[in-house]
């Protein structure tokens, strides 16, 4: 077993997923299968390999600054979507989103 029932519950809690007992059993088994499969990566020696954390830089050329002028000036621009966004919220009270009580006293 790669993953225990307790770990499944802990992960579900971290992900804010309320799982049924059947889901806990099914996901536990399926995650176990998948984790056993991805263990094959352990066969590779990656000690001197830099992690690939960026896709575009190598794609657009070696010189990052040259090929990445997208790092634009940080300037203010008008944005007039607040009303449209709030109008689609499950519960809103301009200019706020309403949520259940957060702090109990």
């Amino acid at each position: 077993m790669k993953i225990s029932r307790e770990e499944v519950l802990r992960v579900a809690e971290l992900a804010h997923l309320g799982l049924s007992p059947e889901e806990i059993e099914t996901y536990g088994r399926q995650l176990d299968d998948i984790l056993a499969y991805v263990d094959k990566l352990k066969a590779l020696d990656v000690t001197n390999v830099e992690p690939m954390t960026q896709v575009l830089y190598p794609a657009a050329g070696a010189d990052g600054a040259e090929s990445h002028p997208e790092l634009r000036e940080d300037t203010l621009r008008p944005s007039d979507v607040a009303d449209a966004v709030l109008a689609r919220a499950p519960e809103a009270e301009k200019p706020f989103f309403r949520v259940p009580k957060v702090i109990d006293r």
Partner: protein
Amino acid sequence: MSGAAPWTIAGVRAALAAKKISARELAAEFYSRIDRRNAELNAYLTLSPERAYAQADRIDAAVSRGETLPPLAGVPMAIKDVISTRGVRTTCASKMLEDYIPPYDATAAERLERAGAVFLGKTNCDEFAMGGSNENSAYGPVRNPVALDRVPGGSSGGSAAAVAAGLAVAALGTDTGGSIRQPGAFCGIPGLMPTYGRVSRYGLVAFASSLDKIGPFAGNVADIAAVTAAIAGHDTYDSTSAAVPVPDYAAGLEKPVQGLRIGVPEDYFGKGLDPEVQEKIHAGIALLERLGCRRIPLRMPHTDYAIATYYIIATAEASSNLARYDGVRYGLRAPGATLTEMYRQTRDRGFGSEVKRRIMLGTYVLSAGYYDAYYLRAQRVRALIARDFSDAFEKVDAIITPTAPTTAFRLGEKTADPLQMYLADVYTVTGSLAGVPGISVPCGKTRAGLPVGLQIFGPHFSEERVLQIAHAFEAAGGFSL
């Protein structure tokens, strides 16, 4: 479909210019086709006739004024339902966004409409683009128009089925691990995954941000080139979109392929590849050789590690991206006495089982104690897979492989075992991880009449060459080998 030749982008332009049909009549013709076929195929989730006819009327007005028509004038198109469309419901095939109407357009959608395209509606897909068969849609599976008991592939199954069935001239899909190329192969039409950064992701509902790409389906390669040209290019709203000039793809299509070096990696022809698919791909490669391409045998030694790498990185990114669905700002909200209870109830009701499974896996591989062993290691292996591609492109101009190890499977055939479903992405996820462009083009049919897809990868930003080879292959009869 009737026996008439299918509409193409060039055909639409010519018919409009010659006033043989109006853009409004053409849109109406496609809506009547959708009326006839969609109940069976389930390719469209939402139709947008108001927006379509308003655009068609603008095109018709331009025709009557004798103006030069924009490149996609009047072309009836479908948009995958993970791409935001202003005023038109965008569900991501999820209960979470059942009533979500975006207040803005994705850049790709906006550019298409500016180029004259007419949006017929939004197409079905796997929920949040997670799946390879379209069976993970909260609104039911799509059926493959070639064989109704089979899946159309996924996740962009609705877009592929709509084009293959003649319910749209072209469509936008998205490709994270194969979600354009594999349904293209299963439905017998071309589909292009552009280079990472070639097409803006602004307005694309995020699944895995380092892997997601928007790209086209169409009935032929010239139409793929036309749609790509319309959506490609830098966008200030997406800092990962590249400021690399967009070539004239249409002009490059007719360049001869003679002398191009095509790499054939033996790692893509191993265990699990259906013998009939293999036979067709070999016939496709032989055809390219007859056109003057030089076949070069290759090794891409990390191919076998791609699925494991992909499912760690994609699910990790998904678990972060999908944290936004918490019932606060948009989409579903389920009642809960406390904030945490509301989050949990909302996510439990809103997400389907594959989405939850991937969020669970992604959360696990990013969690304390496992991050180094899974996520960080996967990012290092991703670098090795990308290096396989850059090493190969020192020796060859393009890489030819099968798109998928099998043809379209039956509905329900793989749903019980998620890992088996993941393994079907074996030939597509490699290029997704490397960020290179790849196209799937039809390469004949098996004896059972099921389409086979041939995949062509090129170096970063080499869409022009990939399209050129695909077009030469099509012109030489490769689609019906």
